[in-house]
């Protein structure tokens, strides 16, 4: 039923697209890179007259709409797992477009900057085991900071989110108790705290509630001037989240399909809660009566995103992908075919 509605909608957009003699592409998914995609697609439209409609409906929705074959591409903060790939029915290509960092932000009166947190402290806070900001474990890492005797209020996402996925993916890697009790999920079963809807919702609650601790994308903490913590990475260094340290986290050996988690990175100066975010598309583009022109337009768009489009990243607080990653993307995009024939040379 739902599928039928979507295909009608797709058909309608197709009809409208040809009527205006303008190629139009449709994609949907992750909300985290949505500002970047909007900016990129707007610029792309001005350059090429190709119109790209992007709906930020969440990573899960993006995967679902792509595999329901109602969109030209999807977008996700968490790469598709084996089960999802199997359900897709045909090979899917992942193209990383930027690197995002999730920061642990806090609202401790008198502590405006520079709080240092270890992985275990973060897990302790979000498990509800550390309930006071002057807990000895925090004090030990922050000898110069005057920590108040204040209750910790955990703030998390109330909606299903790729940000939650990255954050819990990190905690699952670094803390055994977290792995047992909660694990990684886009909507995990939070042991404690209050939920805010979307990054703005969490940022707003953290700003309002004294003693709050939450997690948001770097851009939201920066724009809203909320204090965020330095985090001890795998090699024992305290790293401040930034575009640079997030980029550094991605300097790892990348598998050929780019499906890799870069949380808890091995990189020495890498920020440990960082992630790629991907655009996804079918490797064989001849499906659901799409035209070759449509398929070509999709691949051209993605090619542009990983090359010329990258210059928009940093202005919007997203890290660029490293040249080595771009190389992999080129290789992957060249493997995309229409009727078995590669679309790019």
């Amino acid at each position: 039923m739902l599928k039928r509605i979507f295909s009608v909608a797709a058909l309608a957009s197709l009809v409208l697209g040809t009527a205006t003699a303008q190629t139009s592409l449709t994609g949907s998914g992750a909300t985290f890179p949505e500002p970047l995609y909007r900016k990129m697609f707007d610029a792309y439209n001005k350059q090429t007259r190709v119109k790209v409609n992007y709906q930020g409906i969440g990573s899960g929705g993006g995967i679902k709409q792509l595999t329901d074959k109602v969109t030209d591409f999807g977008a996700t903060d968490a790469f598709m797992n084996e089960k999802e790939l199997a359900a897709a029915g045909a090979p899917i290509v992942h193209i990383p477009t930027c690197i995002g960092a999730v920061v642990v932000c806090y609202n401790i009166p008198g502590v405006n900057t520079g709080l240092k947190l270890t992985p275990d402290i973060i897990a302790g806070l979000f498990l509800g085991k550390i309930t006071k900001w002057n807990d000895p474990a925090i004090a030990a890492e922050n000898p110069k900071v005057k920590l108040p005797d204040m209750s910790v209020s955990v703030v998390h996402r109330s909606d299903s989110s790729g940000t939650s996925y990255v954050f819990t993916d990190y905690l699952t890697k670094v803390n055994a108790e977290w792995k047992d009790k909660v694990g990684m999920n886009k909507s995990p079963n939070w042991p404690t705290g209050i939920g805010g809807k979307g990054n703005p919702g969490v940022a707003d609650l953290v700003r309002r509630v004294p003693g709050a601790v939450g997690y948001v994308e770097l851009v939201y903490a920066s724009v809203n001037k909320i204090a965020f913590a330095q985090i001890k990475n795998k090699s024992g260094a305290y790293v401040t989240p930034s575009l640079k340290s997030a980029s550094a986290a991605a300097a790892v050996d990348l598998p050929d399909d780019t499906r890799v988690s870069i949380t808890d990175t091995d990189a020495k100066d890498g920020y440990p809660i960082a992630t790629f975010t991907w655009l996804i598309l079918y490797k064989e583009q001849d499906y659901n009566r799409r035209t070759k022109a449509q398929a070509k337009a999709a691949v051209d768009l993605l090619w542009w995103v990983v090359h010329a489009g990258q210059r928009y990243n940093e202005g919007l607080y997203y890290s660029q992908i490293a040249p080595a990653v771009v190389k992999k993307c080129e290789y992957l995009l060249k493997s995309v075919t229409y009727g078995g024939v590669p679309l790019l040379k």
Partner: protein
Amino acid sequence: MAEFHSLNSADARPAENKGGAEQAPPSFKAARGRVGRTRGRIGEILFKILLTGGGFVVLVIVAGILLSLIVNSVPSLAAFGPAFLAGTTWNPSGGEFGALPFIVGTILTAFLALFFSLPFSLSLSVLLGEYFRKGPFAALIRTMMELLAGIPSVIYGLAGTFFIVPLIQALEMGIGFVPYGVGIISASIVLAVMIIPYSASLGKEVLELVPEELKEGAYSLGATRTEVVTRIMVPYSFSGIIAGITLALGRALGETIAVTMLIGNMNAIPENLFAPGQTIASLIANEFNEAGADLHRASLLELGLILFVITALITILGKYVIRKMSVGGSS
């Protein structure tokens, strides 16, 4: 209502006679003699069909909603059975779903809202239904009330964030609770404001309907106006007031956006009124968009079904109370 009914059946009777085989020829002749009458009769029948059609559509819609909720929640119904109602864990990653925290959250916020709103909605009803029935002040208050009813709930959510949350936060700090600001109490207060117009406007209508002679009877026994209102008018219109309350409760049970913004969105049974919680409606709003797994979707839909049932039960209960309490119900 009763009059409408009797009119209707009075009209229906001659129509039946005309349809009867034996009587048909003469009445047809008579009818042909007066074309205007015939046209009136056809119009009558068409009008009736239109009305019946409207009723039928309502029936189909309700049945359709119920059916689609049931069909879509089959995976969850099969997986958990009645234990779903008592389950307290909501863990999409572990595939474990229980409805209790949300049922508790829904009922708690709705009834708390009702409790907060009653003093205001009752006094508003009395104010508009007895003290200021006409005049510029009454018009002003009435307009304001209509305005309250017309404000989109997201605006209530925002207003709650800016006015109620800081107040509750200050209170929580004062009494040593975690100063979340958001939680059951904040959501309930804002809900209370949202539902005031519903119970107040119905209360006003029914209080206006109290017969003048009853009020005079009480006055002639030396009752003051307050006594007339509290001991004669309110008891007389009790069933209507209950109807207003039921309406308001239904609104409170289903309110989504404002609650989502203020309740704290914590998937657990609230430990106290200041704790964050989650209602069925707010949970669905939060999770349905990205509910990937079938069981997760089905569980959310089953919660929708539960909300439907709760609302239906309260409506039925309200109707029962109305029938029990209504004046002349015993005769």
